[in-house]
């Protein structure tokens, strides 16, 4: 495949400084059609800042973002601070910026398995339902590029595996490119073509197997990296099995840049519970 003609978005040398802090330094990143790129990094690493630059919401101090005007972008934000005083149904939410037909709305909701929610109030949705509705909304625009900021935010860990499987399915069906953001690394790696590890600068990038072996990645994510390799290879031949071997989701969430190291073996076998990560560390 000719990579030149299938490039959806490309950023070169993007830097951003705010209040004396270097948020992003010389970032190169690109997404091709049919490719799933996962942007990974600890909290506060500048992931959402980079997403906002790529969406054209934030002007970089230096560097540039290239995106053909014909490339339609579907965006799923990390948070939706729905004000409880605003009554809004899922159906109305689907037509927030466009005017889709009822059939188009139903089809988009069916694609994510959320068709039963069409009349529900947005404020009544669970975390997983909200994610599906937001994904459907992005699909309504027939995007060439999907930008998903923390697509499993507020979803329990079984729901996470389902959502990642759904995203992989959508990429297969629509042939769009995906840029996914995650502060965590487990299941997401299995459904990813390329990982970009960000901590204000790009630490490393490559296919998941390569990245997890990288020094800087291990420094950021601790010994958990080993477990990810195992998970990646394990789920390689059968996606659904990943649900059986879900590692503790919270075990490796680095709090404010500090890495909470947990031994891969311990967290790997145990069902997640609030005390799990402290025991393991």
């Amino acid at each position: 495949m000719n990579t030149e003609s299938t490039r959806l978005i490309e950023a070169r040398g993007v830097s951003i400084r705010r209040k004396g802090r270097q948020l992003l330094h010389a970032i190169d990143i690109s997404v091709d059609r049919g490719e799933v790129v996962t942007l990974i990094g600890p909290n506060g690493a500048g992931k959402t800042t980079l997403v906002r630059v790529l969406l054209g919401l934030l002007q970089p101090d230096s560097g540039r973002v290239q995106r053909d005007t014909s490339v339609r972008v579907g965006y799923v934000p990390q948070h939706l601070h729905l004000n409880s005083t605003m009554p809004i149904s899922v159906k109305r939410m689907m037509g927030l910026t466009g005017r889709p037909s009822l059939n188009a709305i139903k089809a988009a909701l069916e694609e994510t398995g959320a068709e039963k929610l069409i009349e529900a109030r947005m404020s009544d949705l669970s975390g997983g339902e909200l994610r599906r509705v937001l994904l459907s909304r992005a699909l309504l625009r027939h995007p060439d590029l999907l930008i998903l900021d923390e697509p499993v935010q507020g979803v329990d860990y079984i729901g996470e595996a389902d959502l990642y499987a759904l995203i992989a399915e959508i990429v297969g069906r629509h042939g769009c490119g995906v840029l996914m953001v995650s502060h965590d690394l487990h299941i997401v790696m299995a459904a990813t073509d390329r990982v970009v590890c960000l901590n204000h600068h790009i630490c490393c990038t490559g296919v998941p197997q390569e990245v997890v072996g990288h020094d800087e990645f291990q420094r950021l994510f601790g010994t958990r990296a080993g477990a990810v390799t195992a998970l990646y290879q394990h789920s390689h031949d059968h996606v659904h099995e990943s649900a059986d071997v879900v590692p503790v989701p919270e075990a490796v969430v680095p709090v404010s840049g500090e890495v909470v190291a947990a031994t891969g073996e311990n967290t790997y076998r145990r069902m997640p519970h609030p005390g799990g990560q402290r025991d393991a560390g």
Partner: protein
Amino acid sequence: MLDDFFVRALLVSVGIGAVAGPLGCFLLWRRMAYFGDTMAHSALLGVALGIILGTSPIVSVFAIVFIAALSLLFLQKVVHLASDTLLGLLSHSALALGVVILALSGSTLGHGLLSYLFGDVLAVTRGDLIVVWAGGLVCLAVLAYIWRPLVALTVHEDLARAEDSPVERSQIIYMILIAGAVAAGMKVVGVLLIVALLIIPAAAAQSLSRTPEQMAVLAAVIGMLASSGGMYGSLVLDTPSGPTIVVMALILFLVSLVIRPLSRVLESVQ
């Protein structure tokens, strides 16, 4: 019929109520009630400047309120003060400055000031009636035009921007509409109570609506009911009309609180 001062006052209040309801929905959704209050308080400064410059108060009030809104948006970005501190500072300074300038200008502060603070709808002229209704219709038409972008940016500003919804333009037009509503509503309920007419009908409509559009229409209806009910109330009870309208709006809000639980009870009985 329009020669009757009460009919004129009634029609003006109903017109203001119809516009204030839908406009107020956004103050609710965006948690901008205090912001609206600040705009309204700066109206008195507008009155004072209007008297000094010899312009029609409705024009000077509109201009000052709009300028106050823009400077608030600007100051929030550059000044390192909590947003409520900034609002309180601007709100009360504008109110105080307005009273001081009114006093210096030598205008009689007695009834004049009270009528600006609490409204004097019985004094509206035939010309006021035409201005309020023509302006109200334009205001509603413009609001309908920017409605969808406004809802989109209220739900998620970045999402609206990413999907090419006109965010800045809609926000500024909305400020102009609020400034217009404050300038016109000042006649009816006065600068101290105009925000009540924006907020309370919208709050009453909220629990009874499923979509933003339903809430806007319902808020307009409740606003008109509050205005007409309040006007009749003030006639019967011989109370000041502005505050009576606000009390009527409050009663409608309290009614809205029991409608939903009541309808559920009725459903379960059947």
